[in-house]
């Protein structure tokens, strides 16, 4: 039995060695995706294009605008002269935020009263708008408090005791600078493994079926189980290599820390690959042409990717969709890989995910193997 599997393994690796385009597909697209995702996927908000209209022309109004600019969150792209110009800048997408300081701003401040500042926000990109609004509030608040304190000192007036003031001390764990890349890069590694390996496995078997070499293999003395092992083992090894390569590129390009134990990640990857191979095998039993395999891949992989919590938190999805996420192996692997990279947690925390992956993997592989035997008969 062992000998026959080894023979099949040799055949598979020879095929891969001679198929230049398969090797290309294995290496280049994942690299491009890694680099693109790493650089392009960001929800951070810096240098938001801002239109400023200062109708007050006082030291105070200039100080407020300066506070916005110095924060590095906002960048003045338009200095408006009229209300109309400021509105146009936001309306025509020249600026995402408009800051309008109305006349009399400083006078109100000097009297110790509340002075209004008008903010226009282009809400088209709701996420950027929401985060920018958060910064506006923080910056204006800090400016106001600094001003009130300063005013009290300058005028010698006693600042009335603030009645209630609750401060929030924030600490961000595991990603203190809230760097988007730290969140995305481990996720990309997991996703690329899924897409590449399912594609390779499914297409490899379907192609043999389509070309007719599957029958040739069947007349050899090899048994179905041996065939399945011989067909999936190469992709298992390739999958491990793929994770290593993509992880290497990701970490060297994007400085993502690895806080955990590599062995835990290795164990998780092995369990994840079980599900991935099972899925590829299952798709290959359902399809007789490569085109069908392509369509099935699309309809299976796309939802898996969307539902796994790769970019968008599962807790924000509708309940019905949340239930589907429980049968998504990628969901569990994302928790494991992010846990290993950022949190540095071990088996004591990740065992439920490992268990789920093991169960899903054996389930998928068993179903696939059973179906596969039937399709051979």
């Amino acid at each position, binding site marked *: 039995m062992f000998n026959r599997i080894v023979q099949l393994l040799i055949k598979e690796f020879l095929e891969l060695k001679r198929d230049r385009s398969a090797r290309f597909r294995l290496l280049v*697209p994942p690299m*491009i995706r890694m680099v693109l995702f790493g*650089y*392009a*996927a*960001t*929800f*951070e*908000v810096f*240098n*938001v294009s801002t239109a400023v209209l200062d109708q007050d022309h006082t030291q105070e109004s200039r100080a*407020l605008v300066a506070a916005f600019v110095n924060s590095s969150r906002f960048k003045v792209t338009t200095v408006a002269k009229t209300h109309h110009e400021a509105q146009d800048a936001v309306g*025509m*997408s020249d600026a*995402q935020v408009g800051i309008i300081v109305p006349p009399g701003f400083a006078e109100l401040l000097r009297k*110790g009263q*509340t002075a*209004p*500042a008008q903010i*226009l*926000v*282009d*809400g*088209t990109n*709701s996420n*950027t708008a929401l985060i920018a*609004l*958060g910064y506006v*509030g923080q910056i204006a608040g800090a400016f106001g408090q600094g001003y*009130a304190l300063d005013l009290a000192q300058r005028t010698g007036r006693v600042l*009335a*005791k*603030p*009645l*209630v*003031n*609750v*401060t*929030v*001390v*924030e*600490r*961000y764990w*595991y*990603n203190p600078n809230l760097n*988007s890349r730290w*969140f995305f890069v481990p996720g990309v590694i997991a996703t690329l493994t899924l897409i590449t390996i399912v594609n390779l496995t499914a297409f490899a078997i379907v192609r043999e079926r389509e070309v007719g070499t599957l029958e040739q293999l069947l007349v050899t003395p090899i048994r179905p189980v041996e065939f399945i092992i011989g067909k999936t083992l190469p992709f298992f090894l390739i999958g491990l290599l793929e994770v290593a390569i993509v992880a290497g590129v990701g970490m060297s390009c994007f400085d993502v820390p690895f806080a955990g134990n590599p062995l835990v990640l290795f164990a998780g990857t092995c369990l994840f690959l079980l599900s991935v191979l099972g899925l590829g095998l299952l798709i290959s039993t359902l399809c007789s042409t*490569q*085109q069908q395999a*392509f369509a099935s891949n*699309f*309809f299976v992989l796309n939802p898996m990717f969307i539902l796994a919590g790769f*970019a*968008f938190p599962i*807790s*924000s*999805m509708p309940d019905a969709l949340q239930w589907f996420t429980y049968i998504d192996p990628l969901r569990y692997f994302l*928790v494991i890989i992010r846990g290993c990279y*950022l949190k540095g947690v071990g088996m004591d*925390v990740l065992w439920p995910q490992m268990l789920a992956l093991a169960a899903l993997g054996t389930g998928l592989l068993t179903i696939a193997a059973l179906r596969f035997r039937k399709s051979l008969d």
Partner: protein
Amino acid sequence: MKLRRIKAIAVKESLQIVRDPRSLMIALLIPVMQMFMLGYSISLDVKHIPVCAYDREASQRSQDLLARFAASHYFSLKQLSHSYAEIKRDIDDGTCKLAIVIPAGFSQGLSDAGTGSVQALIDGTDSNTANIAANYARAVIAGFASDLQVETIQRESGTVQTLTPVDVQARVWFNEDLESRNFIVPGIVALVMAIVGAQLTSLTIAREWERGTMELLVSTPVKPLELMLVKLLPYFVIGLIDAAICLALAVLWFEVPFRGALATLFFTASLFLIVVLCIGYYVSVAIRSQVGASQIALMLTMLPTTLLSGFTFPIDQMPVVIRGVTYLVSARYYVTILKAVFLKGADVAELAVPIACLFLYAVVLVLLAARAFRKTLD
């Protein structure tokens, strides 16, 4: 170009599509599936963030504050922790994303000096959620403080010293409720068209090569340009139907505001379709294998449409080099147009620049694709 020849091949192509109902189903199912999956799951609106609380004081006041977290639909209070170790465990295994620690002596400090401090420990792994969660937490706590202030004032019947010298009056335009659905859904139209247009066409020519029927086509008197036209025309129609399906779902099901003109939308949709169809055609002529062609087409259309078009990730936040690359991505212009037509109600004049870019793109690709295919068998 002869109409008779075009008609003959058009009949053949249409028959081929009609007799393969599965592929046709796929072409019509993709928009529905993408719309529902993405429309529901891509939600940047952070809701129900799992929170755990470590109440070291357990007083009326601290309970009041925690009740506010429980009542807010941005948070869902999962657990009461009893030590920092417990908090660490809960954040580690993902039970909660945010931990609120109320120190002992919290209400004492509030009554005596009017000041208090609350600790917010946030799981920064998902940086975006963390940022938004912190904003909401600040808002909840500020609400608590200002209510307490009103209460104190009423009790002491004193005058108010304003604590907020600058009052931010924010007005949000175009997407007034900051619904992320309104931001995401218009872009899905572009994504669906990129997938359907480039993927399906990339398979057609490659399939003829693989099956050997290309030799048959080459031996007919049909001209390369005629062949391209009839090959792409059915998919152009399917693409437009898909766009209509997406539009109907977006407006009727997801209730995304549509403020522009239908004509603008379909005009630009046609331009974008020409671009992606030509990409698919060009790739399939060049690669000649279905697997290879579909993968390359995927890299050239779906990937940039997802990542580099401003569909979800804002272009102005990308590094300069990548921002330069986005100018080469046709989807960038189309997504800009889609969002402006849907949310801003922009007309052709306001969108002149992106429409011109898209038009230029289409012309260049048509020329490229038309020259790509020669009737040779080498």
